[in-house]
C-alpha cells in the first residue's frame, strides 16, 4: 500500500480529467456475480434487518423478469451483471462520527477531490457525508443536527437505527419494479445518504454527499432517501467523481424525496464522473439513475438542480409527482457533453393535485462528437385542476459534429391546465470568444462567461460557491472543444 495514489488513467487523459486517480486501500469484497446467494451474504455482512433483505429479494425476483430499457437517444454498451462486484468495503470499518478512525488514505483522497472533512470546515456550514464506492465514510456535523432532531447518516446505518422510518418510505416513490436499473439498485444497493427533517424544522446548513467511484470492478449502487416532514425544509448537495479506466463502470443509483405538507426540498447535483476516452469513448461511467420526488403534502415544494458534465452515457430524469394540492416542482438542468459522451436527460412533471405548478429549465451544451438530448414529460391528470407548467429548453452547439435533440411529451387530461413550452438553439461561436478576448479576458474565462450567461437561470439555483465551481468546470471542459 503506497501513500501516493496510483494513477491508473489512460495515457494522455490525466490532464483532461484531474480526478482520474485511484486510491489503493485494503478492501473486503465478495467475488463478482449476482445471485440470490450474493444478495443474502452481502445483506448479512452489513447486518441488515429482515425487511430490507425481503425488499432486496423481491426486487431480485423482479429483475430476473425485466430487461434494460432501450429507449433513449443512446448507444449503450452491454452490461454484464455477472462481472460486477456487489459488495466491496474498505477493511478498516470506520466509526462514522470519529474522524480519527477513518483510513488516512481515504481522507487524503477526499482532500485531493477538494472535499474537506476537517473540523475547520464546520465553519463552512456544510455537513458532508462521503461515500466511497458506495460505502459511507464519514458524516460530519452529525451531533449538531441531532440536537435539532435532524437525521443525516448513511442509509446503511439508518436501516439499523431507524428501521421504521426507512421501511415506511423506502421504495414509496420509486417502487422496486419501476425500471430495470431501479430494480437492480433495489436488489443490491450498497449505501447512500438518509435524511429526515422533523416537522417545522428548517435545516440550518447545506447537507452534502460526495460520491467517489474507486474500485475497478465494483458497481456503484447508491441509494438516497430524503424525507421532509410537515413544514420542514432542507437543501442537499451531491457531487461525484471517478477514476479513469478503460472499461465502463456502472452507476445505477436511486434517489427518493418525500415532501409532506408545506415541506421544501432542494436537491442539487454536480456530476463529473469520468466520461471515457475523448476520441473513442471507451471506458467512462454508465450513469443510469432514477431520481424522483413525491410532493405528497399540500403546498409542498421540490426543486431539482443538476449540472451534468461527465459520464460516457447519462440516462437520468429527476422527476416530481405533484400529489398535494398547490404543490410545486422545479427542474433546472445543465447538461454538457463533449468527446463521445451521450446524454439523454430531462424530467417528468406529473400533476395530480389541484393548482399544482411546475417549471422546467433545461440547458444542453454539446461539443465535439457528442450527443445531447432533452427528454421531458409533462402529464396532467384528470383531477389536476388549473395545473400549470412552464418548460424552456435551450441548446447550445459548440462544434460542427455534435448534436442536440429535444423530445417533449405533453399529456393532459384536464382542460383547465395551462402549459407553455419554449425552445431555442444557439451556437457558441468563435466570434463571441474573440470579442470577449479582445477586451483582455482570457479564453477560458471567455468561454465561462458565454456559457455562464447561457446557463444563468440554472446556476442561480445552485447554492453559494457551487455556481462559480460549476461555471469553471464547464469552461474547463469546453476549452479543448471550441475553436
Amino acid at each position, binding site marked *: 500500500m503506497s501513500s501516493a495514489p496510483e494513477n491508473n488513467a489512460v495515457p494522455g487523459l490525466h490532464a483532461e480529467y484531474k480526478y482520474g486517480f485511484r486510491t489503493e486501500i485494503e478492501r473486503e469484497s465478495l467475488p463478482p456475480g449476482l445471485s440470490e446467494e450474493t444478495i443474502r451474504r452481502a445483506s448479512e455482512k452489513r447486518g441488515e434487518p429482515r425487511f430490507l433483505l425481503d425488499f432486496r429479494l423481491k426486487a431480485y425476483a423482479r429483475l430476473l423478469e425485466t430487461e434494460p430499457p432501450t429507449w433513449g437517444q443512446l448507444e449503450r454498451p452491454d452490461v454484464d451483471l455477472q462481472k460486477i462486484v456487489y459488495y466491496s468495503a474498505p477493511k478498516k470499518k470506520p466509526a462514522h462520527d470519529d474522524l480519527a478512525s477513518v483510513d488516512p488514505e481515504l481522507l487524503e483522497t477526499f482532500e485531493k477531490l477538494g472535499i474537506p472533512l476537517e473540523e475547520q470546515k464546520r465553519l463552512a456550514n456544510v455537513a458532508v457525508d462521503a461515500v466511497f464506492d458506495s460505502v459511507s465514510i464519514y458524516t460530519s456535523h452529525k451531533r449538531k443536527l441531532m440536537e435539532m432532531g435532524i437525521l443525516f447518516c448513511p442509509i446503511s446505518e439508518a436501516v439499523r437505527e431507524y428501521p421504521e422510518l426507512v421501511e415506511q418510505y423506502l421504495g414509496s416513490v420509486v417502487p422496486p419494479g419501476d425500471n430495470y436499473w431501479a430494480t437492480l439498485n433495489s436488489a443490491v444497493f450498497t449505501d447512500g445518504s438518509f435524511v429526515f427533517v422533523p416537522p417545522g424544522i428548517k435545516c440550518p446548513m447545506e447537507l452534502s454527499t460526495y460520491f467517489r467511484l474507486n474500485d475497478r470492478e465494483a458497481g456503484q449502487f447508491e441509494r438516497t432517501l430524503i424525507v421532509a416532514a410537515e413544514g420542514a425544509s432542507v437543501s442537499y448537495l451531491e457531487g461525484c467523481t471517478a477514476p479513469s479506466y478503460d472499461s465502463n463502470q456502472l452507476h445505477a443509483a436511486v434517489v427518493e424525496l418525500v415532501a409532506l405538507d408545506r415541506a421544501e426540498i432542494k436537491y442539487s447535483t454536480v456530476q463529473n464522473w469520468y466520461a471515457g476516452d475523448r476520441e473513442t469513448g471507451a471506458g467512462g461511467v454508465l450513469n443510469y439513475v432514477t431520481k424522483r420526488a413525491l410532493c405528497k403534502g399540500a403546498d409542498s415544494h421540490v426543486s431539482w438542480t443538476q449540472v451534468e458534465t461527465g459520464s460516457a452515457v447519462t440516462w437520468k430524469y429527476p422527476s416530481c409527482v405533484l400529489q398535494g394540492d398547490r404543490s410545486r416542482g422545479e427542474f433546472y438542468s445543465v447538461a454538457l457533453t463533449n468527446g463521445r459522451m451521450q446524454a439523454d436527460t430531462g424530467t417528468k412533471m406529473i400533476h395530480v393535485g389541484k393548482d399544482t405548478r411546475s417549471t422546467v429549465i433545461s440547458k444542453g451544451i454539446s461539443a465535439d462528437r457528442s450527443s445531447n438530448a432533452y427528454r421531458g414529460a409533462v402529464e396532467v391528470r384528470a383531477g389536476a385542476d388549473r395545473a400549470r407548467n412552464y418548460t424552456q429548453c435551450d441548446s447550445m452547439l459548440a462544434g460542427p459534429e455534435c448534436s442536440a435533440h429535444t423530445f417533449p411529451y405533453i399529456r393532459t387530461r384536464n382542460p383547465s391546465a395551462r402549459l407553455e413550452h419554449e425552445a431555442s438553439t444557439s451556437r457558441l461561436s468563435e466570434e463571441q470568444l474573440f470579442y470577449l478576448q479582445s477586451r*483582455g479576458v482570457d479564453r477560458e474565462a471567455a468561454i465561462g462567461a458565454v456559457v455562464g450567461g447561457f446557463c444563468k437561470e440554472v446556476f442561480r439555483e445552485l447554492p453559494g460557491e457551487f455556481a462559480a465551481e460549476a461555471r469553471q468546470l464547464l469552461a474547463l471542459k469546453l476549452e479543448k472543444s471550441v475553436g
Partner: protein
Amino acid sequence: MLRIQDLRAVLTENGEEILHGLSLEIPDGEVHAVMGPNGSGKSTLSKVLAGHPAYRVSSGSVLFDGREISELGPTERARAGLFLSFQDPVEVPGLGNLDFARMALDARRDAEGRAPVSDAEFSEAVDRAMRLLKMDDRYRSRDLNAGFSGGEKKRNEIFQMLLLSPKLAILDEPDSGLDIDALRVVAEGINSARSPERSVLLITHYRRLLDEVKPDAIHVLAGGRIVRSGGPELAEELERSGYDGIEGKA
C-alpha cells in the same frame, strides 16, 4: 505607438492572402483615419491587428509600443493596451453588460499589476462614461449587446473604450448606421479619449465622422495596401474624386 511594416496576412483556413504588404505608422497621441472602398481590407486590418484567429501574419511586422505583437493572441494584445471597437459587436445573452465591462477592466488592471477595481471606483467610472455618451440607465441592467439596436451597440463599444483607457484604440466604423445625433455623441466620446498617451486608428467610410473627429492623418486602403497617405485635407479630395480617382494617383 503603432508601426506596421510590409504586413502580409493570410486566411488561416486556406492561406489566401488578404493584406499585401501594408505599411502604416501612428505616433503617440495621434488620430489616424483609414478610409477605403468596400472590400478593401479595412475590417480585415482591424481584426489582424487585434489577433483574430481567422487570420495569420505571413510576413512583415506589427510593433505596438515597441513590441512585436503579430504572434500574440487577442487576450495578450488587449492586456498590452490595444482595443478594438467592432463594427458589429456580438450579443452574449445572460452576461450582464456591466459585469462584462468590469471583467474586462479587471483584466486590464491585472495586466498592469493593479488590484481589481473597487465598487466605488467602478461605479464612478461607469457614471462618467454613461453621462458623456448620453446612455440611459437601461444599459446597466441589460445583457451584453443583447437586443441592442445598431446605434446602441456602437455607443456601448465607445463606453467600453472609455472605461478601459487603452493605449491604442482601433475603431472599426464606429459611425456606420448612426443618425446624426448619435454620430455626434460617439464623436464626442472619441474626442474625449484623445490624449498624448493614446493613439486612435479610425476606420470609416464617410467624411462626416472626420468633421467631428479631426484626424492628424488620413490613409487610403485599397486592395490590401495603403495606396495614399496625407493630412486631413485628403478627406475633401476623396469626396470630390472618389476612391477611384485616388487610387489612380497611387
